[in-house]
């Protein structure tokens, strides 16, 4: 009987983006996204919380999935997104509006592929006031 714990890692990355749907007219984009549709974009210091869960390794007192999560956060999040323009530098977002819902869903998918089913929650803070939570392959 080993204890089952949750470990959450928190990283920050800075990126530019613009909210603009390829499926809406320019007028509709301005109406839906307001200031976030500024043609030249804007940016955020995003804060990402990723949680893994599972039984502790009795010898090391560690959750093995946490080290897989660390590697995935370094390679898939910080190396790719920190200092990036999300609309230009992230091909997976090219056909999206660039919302934080879509970014949270992409991060959840990428981290789940790398970490496996131990990943239970991804929370993306676009600003301290706007928070997006993805869990369970949404």
């Amino acid at each position, binding site marked *: *009987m*080993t*204890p*089952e*714990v*949750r*470990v*959450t*890692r*928190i*990283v920050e990355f800075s990126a530019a983006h613009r909210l603009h749907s390829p499926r809406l007219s320019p007028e509709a984009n301005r109406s839906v996204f307001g200031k976030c549709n500024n043609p030249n974009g804007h940016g955020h210091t995003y804060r990402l919380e990723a949680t893994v869960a*599972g*039984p*502790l390794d009795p*010898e*090391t*007192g*560690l*959750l093995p999935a946490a*080290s897989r999560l*660390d590697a995935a956060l370094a390679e898939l999040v910080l190396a790719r997104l920190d200092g990036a323009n999300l609309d230009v530098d992230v091909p997976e977002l090219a056909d999206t509006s660039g919302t934080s819902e879509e970014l949270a869903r992409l991060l959840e998918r990428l981290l789940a592929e790398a970490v496996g089913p131990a990943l239970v929650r991804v929370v993306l803070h676009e600003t301290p006031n706007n928070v997006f939570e993805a869990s369970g392959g949404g």
Partner: protein
Amino acid sequence: MPTLRVTKKFEFSAAHRAWREDRSPEENRRLFGRCASPNGDGHNFLLEVTVEGPVDPETGMVIDVGLLKRIVTAEVLDRFDHRHLNLDTEEFRTRVPTTEAIAVVIWERLEGRFPGDCRLVRVRLARDASTYVEYEGRRA
């Protein structure tokens, strides 16, 4: 009867050594990352203790938070604050005091200590701004 959760936050500062003598230095560094050190390092640990229970109709409280503070102080802070967890505590003489393991030990020290129908439901322990661990008493 409807229940409610109450959380109180605490802080303690402690040294710990995440290192196994029976593993190579490379293996220790791979396992314990930034905390791997044969001489140990230290943190200001942030502890959140959450209890759940019915609201007493006379007092309007789940638990007197002063009592919650006294229990956590006696069971956790008096033992861990300004100590070296490997050298100064029984629990970690043979176990590695990772943040995960410390959270489990705190749970074990606190479970069953609260009066009436008030029970411990979560221990959340943050090592620094980039990592926190949650334990709710589950075992596999």
